[in-house]
């Protein structure tokens, strides 16, 4: 069991909030659309962070099941930014390589999304799908998942909703420099 008190300060800074303001009323969990499916519900996440049990909070599946709908933060009677705390835990869990093994599909998706933006400045959907599917396959080989959404492609093409190449910004170098500046000042293991 590791205690890392300074990590709570990191969370508070990343989330612009005070975690000890939480008095465990449970309103965040009551309104959470994903609470039914979570291993550790939002109010429990807050308690773990208060008790400096970040090792456990960072490994929770629930931080990746969270859909970032902001209901928890909006309804908190103490104005604790619960969704921001979950974001901070996600960031730290990836930087420290302890994110839930069961939720790697979502982790891989967010990483693929960000690396796509780093390269192009804007999302290239086809490239994202390719990167994500291959990345998810490496973590959890499933042929069915690899080809799951492929039937959507013809439907999208028929509706003109499919851009085979996608867009890039003109000044891609500045985007890369912005990424480098932000990534270098946070965690060491974060390669985006």
């Amino acid at each position, binding site marked *: 069991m590791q205690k890392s008190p300074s990590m709570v300060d990191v969370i508070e800074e990343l*989330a*612009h909030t005070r975690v000890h303001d939480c008095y465990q009323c449970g309103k965040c969990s009551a309104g959470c*659309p*994903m609470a039914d*499916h979570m291993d550790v519900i939002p109010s429990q996440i807050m308690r773990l962070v208060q008790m400096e049990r970040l090792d456990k909070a960072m490994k929770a599946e629930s931080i990746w*099941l969270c*859909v*970032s*709908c*902001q*209901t928890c*933060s*909006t309804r908190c009677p103490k104005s604790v*930014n619960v*969704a921001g705390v979950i*974001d*901070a835990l*996600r*960031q730290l869990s990836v930087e420290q390589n302890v994110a839930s093994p069961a939720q790697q*599909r*979502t982790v*891989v*998706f*967010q*990483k693929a*999304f*960000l690396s796509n*933006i780093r390269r192009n*400045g*804007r*999302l290239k*959907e086809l490239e994202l*799908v390719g990167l*994500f599917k291959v990345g*998810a396959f490496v973590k959890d080989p499933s042929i069915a998942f690899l080809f*799951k*959404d492929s039937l*959507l492609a013809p439907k*999208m093409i028929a*509706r*003109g*909703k*499919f*851009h085979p190449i*996608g*867009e890039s*910004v*003109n*000044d891609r170098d*500045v*985007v890369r*420099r*912005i*990424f480098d*500046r*932000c*990534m270098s000042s*946070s965690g060491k293991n*974060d390669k*985006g």
Partner: protein
Amino acid sequence: MEIGYYPGCALHGSSNDYERSVRACLNALGVNLRELDDWICCGATAAHSLNQKLAVALPARSLGIAERDGYDDLLAPCPMCSMELLKAKMLISGDAALRKEMSEVVELPVEGRTSVLNLIQVFQRIGYDKVKEAAKVSLSGYKPACYYGCLLTRPPEVLRFDDCEQPSSMETLLASLGAAPVEWNYKTECCGAGMTMCNEDTVLNLSHKILSNAARHGANCVVVACPMCHVNLDMKQADVERRYGVQHGMMIYYLSDLVGLALGLDEEALGINRHYVSKR
């Protein structure tokens, strides 16, 4: 009237029907959209999940471009984009140290001066009475469930728009055009947003609840102002029906679709013929 325009990735990608609808509808109201030069992605959920600094810097770059090019207002029809732009604006404008740091990171001075608008706010800017005056066709027969989802109103201290639990701005507009919006319970519940690909179970589950509640309250269509809501409720509706063994058959309109129809535009001009669910 000319308004700055930040399309965001979705409207230039698989939600290009939304862009078509917004442009056609606003054009008919005499609003010209001027697209922000070389805008970059807001970072969306990926940035705020993986790097909090990047989640401010990416929208800050676009805000910096807007300030450099003299934009006062910026329409971001995607609520994810508008929320991220507004959050960056709020943090930057309220913190001199961050302002200085971000101006260096994004290589442009950025103060957070631009006002960022969602689609509903543009209709408010035009004036609901003016929209009504321009309408040629009554929307009678439409009983929409107005669906706001998450990020049009949340977090409220960032968005400062409508009531975060009981919003009514879309109902007011559509009712003035002859529609009969229904009262229902899922106005601000989440559809699963950007989890469509990486966590389909969640999206199908949440979307099923939303579609079911709308139908139970007598809606014959759902109206959205978000590309992700549209993907999950329209494109994924067939999957929802298969998963839960039901027939929703619920038409999903963008807000600009219904306003456009009232203005006398046809379905093709608005891109309604490109939706997945069609009228039976």
